[in-house]
């Protein structure tokens, strides 16, 4: 395959221009500006213009820099990390479930741990859905149970067992200090400890979630911003059919 070498574009191909801003913990001065320039040069940047510097506190200076980035990236070597299943519409999905799986899919969802943000999981599960795309509750072939927010991992697992769920959907919004990683991990570890990991399709979601991160954390898939319910439903039916060996 031919290589496709890319770098950032300002107004001319391969000019490499990037805009950068950061704060350094030093007092505003000419020396501080020079430090910003030197620092930027350590980030593989050249032709560095420290366009702006301002004092934003005692001993803190804010900088805006434009510069040319040096590295080249071979775009053909980039592997996309999104969930790869065909994106179907609600009626196609329902038909597929009815025709192939021949029973309803049961999905239990929640925002776990201390996270109180429900809007994300609601967008996927509640009737109303998101962006003109109905939520799972609206699917005739889904039984979708949304437990809301601040649900403990234990409670989520026992609800999934109680309903004999196919899938567990977990949402996390607060990421400060890696709170989400802790919560996600806790759930997986609990499932593994009780030998239940294989029983459910485990899906993570939230504004800072990528499929890649989810898989790293031991989930089957991850969905980030702009996810619509039908994407998740498409994924679930494809995976469940796969898991149950139905073609």
């Amino acid at each position, binding site marked *: 395959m031919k290589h496709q070498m890319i770098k950032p574009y300002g107004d001319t191909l391969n000019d490499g221009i990037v805009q950068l801003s950061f704060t350094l913990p030093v007092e505003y001065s000419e020396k501080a500006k020079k430090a910003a320039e030197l620092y930027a040069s350590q980030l593989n940047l050249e032709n560095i213009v420290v366009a702006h510097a301002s004092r934003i506190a005692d001993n803190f200076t804010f900088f805006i820099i434009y510069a040319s980035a040096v590295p080249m990236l071979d775009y053909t070597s980039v592997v996309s990390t999104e969930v790869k299943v065909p994106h179907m519409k609600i009626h196609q999905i329902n038909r597929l479930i009815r025709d192939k799986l021949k029973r309803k899919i049961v999905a239990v969802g929640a925002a776990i741990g201390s996270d109180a943000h429900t809007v994300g999981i609601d967008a996927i599960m509640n009737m109303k859905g998101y962006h003109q795309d109905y939520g799972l509750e609206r699917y005739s072939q889904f039984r979708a149970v949304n437990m809301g927010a601040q649900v403990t991992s234990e409670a989520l697992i026992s609800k999934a067992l109680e309903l004999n769920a196919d899938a567990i959907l977990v949402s996390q919004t607060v990421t*400060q*200090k890696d709170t989400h990683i802790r919560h996600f991990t806790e759930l997986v570890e609990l499932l593994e400890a009780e030998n239940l990991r294989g029983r459910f399709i485990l899906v993570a979601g939230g504004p800072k979630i990528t499929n890649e991160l989810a898989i790293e954390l031991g989930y089957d898939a991850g969905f980030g911003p702009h996810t619509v319910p039908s994407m998740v439903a498409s994924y679930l039916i494809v995976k469940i059919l796969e898991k149950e060996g139905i073609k």
Partner: protein
Amino acid sequence: MARLRINSRQVSRMKKLATEISSDVQELISRHSSVSIERTILRLYGVDGVDEDGTPIPNLVADRVKEKEGIENGISHFFAKTMAKTGKSSQKTAEMIVGGKIDFSKLDKVPQEKVIQTETALVDTALHVLDSSRERKHEKETTYPSPKPPLRYLIVATGNIYEDRTQAESAVTSGADIIAVIRSTAQSLLDYIPHGPTTEGFGGTFATQANFRIMREALDRISEKEGRFIRLVNYASGLCMPEIAACAAYEDLDILLNDSMYGILFRDINMKRTFVDQYFSRLICARANIMINTGEDNYLTTADAIDNFYTVTTSQMINEAMAKKAGLSEELIGLGHAFEVDPEIENSFLYELAHAQLTRQLFPRSPVKYMPPTRYKSTDIFYSHTLDTLFNLASILTDQGIHLAGILTEAIHTPLMQDRHKSLSSINYVFNTAASLKDEIEFKRNGFIEKRTRQILGQAEKFLKEIQKKGLMKVISEGKFADIKRSKDSGKGLDGVFEKGPLYSNPIMDRLEQDIE
């Protein structure tokens, strides 16, 4: 100033309905107390500190009393009696109770007049805590020039009180008038106040009395340096509302987030608990000259701002009525609202102006708190910065009292130091460049803006009538606020609220109520 013509008779009718609604709730309040209220009494009597496990002494005392004596009649009298018995300080006495050093059965022997005397002294101390905070604030208010509203309100939320201090200083350097330390995620659900300086919070920093003090000292220092009075805010709503108010009074906080319904709706705290707690909390605020802020802005983070703005207006009126019952003057009632109309809607800015101006005119003497767009913030920080810029304009144009700074990275992370700087540089520019815009334009008669406000008033009046008929608790249980349903006998902290016994007394509350006018 640009004014909307609103029907003042309709407004009076609405305020009257709100008063009736609050009176109904007040009846419930007067029959109940809560563990948090009793712990507040202890705190105001001077009890502080934690045991080895970090459990606050006030909690341990209250638990002990509950267990041994029952708490139905309140803790004050019992505590005074014990103290009269020990002859020690309140702190020492509390420690002795916790240490099991008090033989509860022997307390009856203490002469009643000695108990009364001790209790009176304790109450005097408590009131002195509040009054002296009030006085210190008053002094600052007279020392420093009055800031020109809207006051620039910036949040810090690193989780580490010392980093928060650095951030706060930076924000003040860039022009902040008010610093709010956002509370760590879910602290509102803790039935105790953590203790000491803390450096590990999530999405915010723990509200502790020590943290209050650290920030207060830093802001006092910088106030002096800048020659401006920098106000400090924290959050009360939650399971420890009145206790936080007490700690805030000790440490001279200026503003507390203190809503009569936020805990119910957004934290699933039991209704009765919340109503009861907010009352005592607000009595304390009124006395210590702490402005309250309400949380109507939160409604619009889940419910649609066009369909549901009337719930904001309704809630503001109820919050105001309840605040007045607790003796808060209008100047201390900072009602909340927010710039949350979907920006993709044509003329969304006109809706925002209508909402902001209406709020301003309905509560002319209150320093209304205006919240920035959050829900429709994009991860495109440049776009988000433009939303905030128009928000800033709406604020200066409708003469808001407190302006919560919008942050361009709202949809990404809690603010970095540089984010706050950018926010303030936009605010400073807009407030200056459009300083008198409000005096130089007028809203068109019977135009979109006036019609929109009339629509909201109509909807809100109808809603108030419904609430007045059904009762506030019923309406909440029907999910009429923020699309959230809560029932009277569920929710967190229910076990901490109790019906007052026949001998119940809360002499601090009595004194505060007595002094209201």
